[in-house]
Structures are given as C-alpha cells and as structure tokens.
C-alpha cells in the first residue's frame, strides 16, 4: 500500500514537472518578462549583499585609524603624565603614544625627505605635542564614537582632535543609505515580480481553463491542479535567481577590474569579495520563494478557487 502510494507520488511529481515545463514553453514572452523581473529584483539584493560585505570591512578599517589629540602649548610634563594615565583609563582606547614637539618635527622632517631643508629656516618648532590613540575594536557604533570624541576634545589639556571620527560617521551613514535604498528598491521590485509572475500564471490558467475544468471534474485534488503552476513559478524564480547571479558575476568582474586600484588607494582594500556559497544559495532560495508565492496568488482569486 505504502509502496503504491510512493509510486503514485513519483508519477505525480514527474507529471507536475513535465506540465510545468510545457506551461513554461507555452508562456513565451510573458514567461521571459517574469524571469527578467525576478532577475532585476534579485540583482538589487545581490548588489546589497556585495556592498554590505565589502564596505563593512572598510568601516572597520576606518575605525582602526589612529586618532591624534593635539595638546595645548606650554603643557607641563606632569600634566602630560596625568593625561596619559587618563587616556589609558578609557576603555575605548587600546593604546596611547605620546609624541613630543621635537618628535613631531623629526617625523615631519622624515616625511618631507629631501625637502626637509625647508624646515631649517624655521625660527621655532611650530608643531604641537600630541597623543596618537589606537581605538578599541569594540567601538563600532558611530554615535558612541562621536560622544567619545567629544569627551576627548573637552579635556583641558587638549587643543584639537584629528581623526577618522567624522568621516567614519559619514561613511557609515552613506553605507546605511546605500543599503536602505538597495533594500527598498529590491523589496519593491520583488513585490512587482510577484505580481508579474502571478499574472503570467493567471494567463496560463486562463489558457488551460478547459483542461482545469476537466481535471476537477474527473476528481483531481486541488493541489494536483495547482502544483504544475506552482512548479512553473518556482522554475521562473530559480531561473531569475540564476540570471541575477550571472549578471552580478559579470558586473563584479567588470567593476572589480576598474575600481580595485581606487579602492586600494582610498580604503586600502586589496580585493573585493564576491559571494560565498551561502549568499548564492540565499539568492536562489529567494527566487524560488518569490516564484512559488507568485504562482499561488492567482488561486486566491475567487474565479480560480476550488469548486
């Protein structure tokens, strides 16, 4: 009995698959439009994943950049030692290095190399003493970073602060905005593709109305009637996912080639990462879900419901 049922299940499965393939071919242009619309929405989600996975390390990198605290003139060694202790007490600071006025000038001289001779004409050392701070890796929230920087600039010995705070915050905001825009457009396009698939399936249902009537008449269960259409939607979603991945790959190589040197110069990123198997699986599953759901929608219309 069980074996007979399993056999029947297999027969039904192959029937659904064949029927879905047939519907897919008959669909023609509307099927192609459905696949392209899914591919467009999934492409945006691919871009979202690419931007997120590649710019997040940039943000982390930016946070690792040292912050320089310039000290006021005429600070006593006692005040410097007191400040050093205070800075060491901050959990946000992993390391604080004191750079005296003389060291700062030496450093500058080394930077200028052969032009360092220009500095010989100076009557006094104009460079201030400073503290170079390495920030803790836990300090990821831009708001926390901002409040920490304001605490630093309020210290009485500190004249000014130079560091990544402002642009980390800007970069973080930009990243958030890019993510949000991609996600919003992706979501809107996903909903649009859902309806395009639904209307494609709706057309197929209309084309096969007589056959469906006969199927129901001879005792087909509602799922037996629906499954070929759901399979068709799943196939469209899967193909849309594949197309999105192919386009992303092409864009990745074109983009990577062009922009890699720039990214290396600005952010110090040596290579842009592509998707891992997890992301590829996610995109395909998303395509399948959108396709399947879009195919179920027409059956929620009363004229296509069970009778």
């Amino acid at each position, binding site marked *: 009995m069980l074996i007979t049922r399993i*056999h*029947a*299940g297999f*027969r*039904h499965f192959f*029937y659904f698959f064949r029927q879905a393939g047939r519907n897919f071919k008959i669909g023609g242009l509307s099927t192609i439009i459905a696949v392209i619309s899914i591919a467009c929405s999934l492409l945006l989600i691919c871009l979202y994943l690419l931007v997120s996975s590649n710019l997040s390390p940039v943000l982390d990198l930016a946070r690792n950049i040292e912050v320089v605290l310039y000290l006021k003139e005429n600070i006593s060694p006692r005040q410097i030692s007191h400040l050093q202790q205070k800075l060491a007490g901050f959990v946000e600071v992993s390391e604080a290095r004191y750079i005296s006025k003389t060291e700062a000038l030496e450093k500058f001289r080394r930077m200028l190399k052969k032009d360092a001779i220009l500095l010989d004409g100076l009557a006094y050392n104009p460079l201030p003493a400073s503290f170079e701070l390495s920030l803790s890796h836990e300090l990821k929230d831009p708001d926390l970073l901002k409040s920490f920087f304001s605490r630093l600039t309020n210290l009485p010995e500190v004249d000014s602060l130079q560091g990544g705070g402002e642009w980390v915050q800007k970069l973080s905001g930009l990243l958030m905005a890019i993510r949000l825009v991609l996600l919003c457009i992706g979501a809107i396009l996903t909903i649009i593709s859902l309806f395009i698939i639904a209307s494609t399936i709706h057309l197929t249902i209309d084309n096969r109305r*007589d*056959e469906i*009537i*006969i*199927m*129901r*008449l*001879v*005792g*087909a*269960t*509602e799922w*037996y009637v629906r499954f070929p259409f759901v399979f068709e939607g799943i196939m469209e979603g899967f193909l849309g996912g594949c197309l999105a991945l192919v386009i992303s790959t092409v864009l990745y190589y074109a983009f990577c080639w062009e922009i890699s040197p720039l990214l290396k110069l600005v952010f110090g990123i040596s290579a842009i990462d592509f998707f891992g198997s997890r992301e590829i699986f996610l995109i395909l599953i998303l395509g399948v879900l959108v396709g399947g759901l879009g195919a179920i929608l027409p059956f929620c219309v009363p004229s296509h*419901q*069970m*009778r």
Partner: protein
Amino acid sequence: MQPLSAIVQMFHVYKTFDGNCKALVDINLRIEKGEFVFLVGSSGAGKTTLMRLLFREEKTSSGQIIVNGRNINKLKDSHIYQLRRKIGVVFQDFKLIPTKTVFENVAYVLRVLGRSRFEIERKVCAALKRVGLEHKLERYPKRISGGEQQRVAIARAVVNNPVLLLADEPTGNLDAERSREIMQLFLDINHEGTTVLMATHNLRTVEGMNERAIYLREGEIAHY
C-alpha cells in the same frame, strides 16, 4: 432479485440564482442503484442545474442531497474530488482536451488518480474497446467525428468504473443514427450495473426506451 438501495436522494432541494431566479423548486427524488433514469424537460427547465448539483459544481440553496450514501451538502470543498471519483459525467459538448489524443483523453482520469502505466493502458484500452474506438487511440479529437468524440467522452466517464453516470444532453449535437448508437452504449453500460441519469429535452429519445423518466417544468418536478 437484489434489494434496491438509493444512489441518489434529494430532499426539498431548492436552487436560486442571483437571489430571486428560481432554477429548482422543492425537488424530491430517489434513484435506485442500477436504474436508468431520464430527466426530461425543455430548455431552462432546470435539468442541467440538477445535474450540476449532483457532482457539486453548484451548491443547493436549501435542502439535502445524498449521493452514494453521502450528504454532499456537508462535503468540504477540499473533499469534492472524493465524490467526483465515484461519478462519471458526459456533456453535450464532449469537453475533450483538443491537445491530447483519444488515448490520452481517457487516460487522463487514471493519471489524476496516480495509477500505474500498466493499469492505465489496460483500463483505457478496455474502455475504448467498449465504445468501439480501440482503433483510433492515437487520433486527436478534431480528427474524429462528433459521434466518436462523444464515445471518447463516454469512455473517459466510465474508465474508472463510476457508481453513477450523469449524461447531460449527450445526443444533443448528434444526428439520429449516431444518437441511437450512443443511447445503445448507455444502455449497455447500465446493464453492466452502472446507474445512469440522462438529461434530455427530446421526448422521442425517452419514448423509444422502457425506462423511468422524471419531467421537469420551470424547475419543478411535473410527474414521474
């Protein structure tokens, strides 16, 4: 002689469309297993509506219908297929799938039920032999005559051995000679034990046969 038992019972059945259009009014009838019954009436008398109630294509406005021991008013939508697997239906316009061959049209019923290829071949060939079309298995519906198309529809209706065969004006589109052949086919099927309920507007069809007839007039039973 076997004791009779009802295969169809209707109790005070009413069917109203769009609120006030009365299609059936207080229908009470009983059809025994193995009977051949005509449902006679002019166009608009309610024959098709009554048929459609029996395979739950329509629901009653009030009243109860028992088919093969089951109250079909209480049947959930998702369980209608169970009722339809016990009933064969033949229409005036045949309702064959034009893109499938004669064999595939008949096999469709068994495919839906998940039968094996061997069983499908055996039963479909037997059904087509029964209607005299075993030599036209590979033809498409458009390549055979109207009478032959109706025979295919009959083969499809009986291939799963239904307990009840409903035929709605099955000879309506056929000439006199083809009609006689089709009627003989229904009689043969009935003699093999299947209950047949046939709707017709043609009194001549009924007069030539020695079977019970139920007359419908404006949705009401006129007389048995």
